[in-house]
Each structure stands twice: as C-alpha cells, then as structure tokens.
C-alpha cells in the first residue's frame, strides 16, 4: 500500500503542475491579448519605466510554451560562449558551482577540525564562543566590500563569501556532535587503551558523523542561496550574474529558465549530501 501512496502522491504532483502551467498559460495569453501596449489607465510615464512601451509582446511574461522552447535551446547547447555577456546557462552554472565547491571545500577543511577542537576542549569552546556568536549572525554579503577591497578579485571575493557563509553551520554542528558523543563509547576506547588520535577517528568521528553531515547539508543549502546574490553583486560570470544580465536584457524567459536551473541544482546538491548522510547514519 505504500507504493500506492507514492503513486498517488506523484499523480497529485503532476496534476498540480498541470494546473499551474494551465493558469500560467491562460494568464500570459491574456497579456498577449492586452497586447502590444500599455494597459489602459496606466500612467504613460510609469509604463515607460516598467519597460512596457519599449518592447512589444516579448516583454510580457512569457508563456510556459515559450519557456519550454527556451529551455530546449538551453539544454541542447548549454555551454556556448559568445563573449562576456552571452554565455550558455550551463557554462554560467559551472562557474557558480566551481565557486561554491571551492568556498565550501575550504569551509569543510576549516570547520571540521576546528569543530573537533571546540567539541573536545571545554577551554577552546568557551574561548571561541564570543567570536562565533558575533560572527555567525553577520550576513555573508556584508563581507563583500571588505573582501573586494582586500582581495581585489571579484571571483575570489565570491569564493570567500561562500566560505564565510558555509563555515558556521558546519562548525557548530561538528562541535555539538563531538561534544555529545556518548561517554560510554569514549570509556570503551579508554579501557581498551586506544590512543587519542585513533580514538578521534574510530569513535568520535563515526559517532558525530550524522550531526556533522546535518551541518554540511545546511551549509551547502546556504552556500547555494548566497552564490546567486554574490554573483549579482560582483558580476562577470556565474548563474547569479546571468539572472541579473538577462533581467537587464529584459529576457524574462531566460530569467525563468535560470530560476529553474538554480532550483534543480540546489536540489541535486542537497540530495547528494543526504545520500552521504544516510551512509553514515547508524540506528541505535
């Protein structure tokens, strides 16, 4: 009967999607009829500001069919490169993914050992706590000007912002996971005269792994949220820059495609870590 639940859920999902697309199609068709111009009663100045007079039809919200066609074009040739302002979505996505993976990777290398230290040493935990408490709530984008000023490279600055936003959840979760390893498991290792190094790898790491993975999963989610905003700020390349650029080009179709791609990529990243989390989880 559980399979029938999955089946029914899938059916409802498809139905909801169909309804959504239908409403979307209907709404945009309405726009199309309203046509080439300014909705009646709108201040012409405001209409100009909104871009409604600049283009005809195309500026209106694209229909799902148009988006579908655009998506097809994108998927068939995602990696073309025709200069700085015309790169394929796939290429832009690869830039963003690269920045996220580098920033996130460095954050993993910093947060997990530091989290171990904080979790194992009450002294370090107390000593570092004020710094963490102050640094953690800072919006990662607030670091951007400082990063740009000191690093002087927009790409590396974006990587730094990703690092700084993904380090905290991992750090705190690692510290918490390490600090709450069951005393009896540590006592087992102690009575077996297991050295501190081997103990860290054979008892503390496996015991804390599920908690650490939770932190890593939160972090990758935040990093993927932040990269879009960061790239909008620094410009140049990346999916965030792409969205902003297409908005400036008034290509709403491409904006919608980019939004879809961002969502799917974020889901894939999360699912990958969820998979690893399942591997290290143990039933008690």
């Amino acid at each position, binding site marked *: 009967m559980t399979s029938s639940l999955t089946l029914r859920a899938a059916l409802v999902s498809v139905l909801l999607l169909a309804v959504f697309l239908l409403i979307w199609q209907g709404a945009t068709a309405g726009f199309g009829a309203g046509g080439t111009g300014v909705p009646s009663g709108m201040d012409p100045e405001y209409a100009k500001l909104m871009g409604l007079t600049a283009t005809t039809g195309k500026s209106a919200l694209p229909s799902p069919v148009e988006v579908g066609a655009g998506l097809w074009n994108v998927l068939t040739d995602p990696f073309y490169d025709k200069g700085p302002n015309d790169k394929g979505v796939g290429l832009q996505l690869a830039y963003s993914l690269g920045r996220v993976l580098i920033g996130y990777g460095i954050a993993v290398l910093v947060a997990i050992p530091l989290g171990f230290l904080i979790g194992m040493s009450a002294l370090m935990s107390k000593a570092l706590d004020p710094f963490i408490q102050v640094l953690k709530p800072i919006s990662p984008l607030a670091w951007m000007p400082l990063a740009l000023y000191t690093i002087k490279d927009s790409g590396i600055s974006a990587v730094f912002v990703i690092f700084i936003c993904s380090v905290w959840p991992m750090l705190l979760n690692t510290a918490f996971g390490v600090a709450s390893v*069951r005393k*009896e*498991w540590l*006592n*087992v290792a*102690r*009575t*077996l*005269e*297991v050295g501190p190094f081997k103990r860290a790898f*054979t*008892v503390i790491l*496996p*015991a804390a792994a599920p908690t650490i993975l939770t932190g890593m999963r939160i972090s990758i989610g935040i990093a993927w949220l932040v990269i879009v905003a960061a790239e909008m700020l620094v410009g140049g390349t990346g999916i965030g820059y792409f969205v902003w650029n297409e908005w400036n080009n008034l290509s709403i179709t491409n904006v919608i495609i980019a939004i879809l791609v961002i969502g799917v990529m974020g889901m894939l990243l999360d699912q990958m870590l969820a998979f690893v989390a399942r591997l*290290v989880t*143990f*039933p*008690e």
Partner: protein
Amino acid sequence: MSEPRYVSIEGISRRFQAAGGRTTTVFDDLWFSMSKGEFACIIGHSGCGKTTVLNILSGLDRPDDGAVVVDGTAIEGPALDRAVIFQSHALLPWLTVLGNVAYAVSSRHKRWSRAQVRDHAMRFIEVVGLKGSENKRPSELSGGMKQRVGIARALSIEPKMLLMDEPFSALDALTRGTLQDEVRRICLETGQTVFMITHDVDEAIYLADRIVLMTNGPNATIAEIVQNPLPRERRRLDIHKQADFYAVRNHLIDFLVERSKTFKDQRPAGYDHRHPPVVRPTAAPQPSPDGDKRAA
C-alpha cells in the same frame, strides 16, 4: 591475611561537588582486597557508590584519597588487563558484532593481521553463542545478545581481571540464568579475577566467593564481607537445596532491608575500616550478625 593479594583497595574515598559549593563524600575509607581467581560481588542500595568503586578499579575514575593496587602496581588509568562489562553494554552501534569484538582485539594486539584479529574475535563470539550473528549491527540484537557481545568483547582481550557493572540486570530471567551459567563457566575455566556489581541477591550467591556489603550513601562504608558458605561446585538449578542457601540469602536480604540504613549509627564495637567484619552465614547454629568470628 596470608593469601597473596592480587587486587588491593587501600583506603579509597571519593567526593563530588554538590550544588551550592559543598562537597558530598560518596564513600569513605574503603579497604578490600581480592586474591587471584576470586569472584567478588558488591551489593548495596542505589546511589551508594558501587559504580564509582568499579570505575576507580577500571581506572576510568580516580579516588580522592587512597589507592588501588593491582598485581603490585598502583592503578594510574584504564588498562587492557582490566576489562569492563558496562551496565548499558556500550556497544559501538556503527560496527557489527564482529566489528565490536575485533575493535577490542586489534587494540590489544596492534600488530596482528586482519585475519588473525578476525579469527580471534570469532572464537569469542562463538564462546558466548553468537556464531551466525557476527555480521549484525547492535540495533538488530536483543538485549541479551547485546550483553553477550559486551561479554565477548571483554573476554576477547583476555584480561587479568573482569569488572562487571550489573551485567544482567536488564535481562529477562531466562536469559539472565543462561548468561550467568556461561559467565561462571568461563571465569572458572580461565581463572578470572572478577569484581561484579549486582542488585540480585540470588545472583550474588550463585556467582560469588565473597560478597561485599555496602551501607547507604553518602559516606558509605563496607559494612561487612560475607563469605559464601556454598561449595564451589554448585549449580543454579538446585542451589536453593543447598543447606546454607537460605542462611546466606536471609542474611543478605536482612542487610539490604534493615541494616544498610542503620549500620552507620550502630557500628559494632571495634569496627575497623581496614578490616571490616567477615561473616560466614551457615544453616545452624544461626549466627548473630555481630557476634561472628573474624575470618583469618
């Protein structure tokens, strides 16, 4: 005492910080020694400090005063020659049965090959009757099976001494009985020196050579040491038919119900922390608790 002392608890006390900056003394000035191959049980009410004594014996905890000497050297910390069977079995849940036992074996024999470790671990998994379940995770085992893994893990490092904290208390009567039999057989065969905490009077009588009675805490002391009058050859099924069985049993229960509370205020004349009274309850003539002869 003429017998050579293998384990010697010498005047240990343990104090903890209580709320409000005061300290509570859990137990004070305990003296007790064991000879090699002896099976001792300790009985006392909850909170009197039995686990704390066991932790000090294992080296996981340290006394505030006094020392414990094992085989001529004072305990400095946990060591592989004293294996602990934890009350909560303390298996590592991410390892299989074999993994848990092998973890102990490879800690003991650091140079052994994988195959050697595996064979050795399998031998002890067989001893506790878990062959066939070696690839299961602890979460797939029943309480009794988990406890067996804990026993196999402790035995696999072939320690000089076994420390057991209420190893059977969480089990049903049937499983408990079987495991008691197995542990007794293994300990007799290998000549283990065993220190075991229990709440179960019958278990103590079946397993122990001597039973240590602890008064209620705080400031707990050893009230007396009961020598088990039953012959070493005994069987669980007909132990209650032994002549002295009820004499010991009544003595122990009487202590737990009555004297563990009142002992502090009614210490027998000449009570000495270093040499607590030794009694040997037998069927007849019924000895009175404080009129006993001191054992040599």
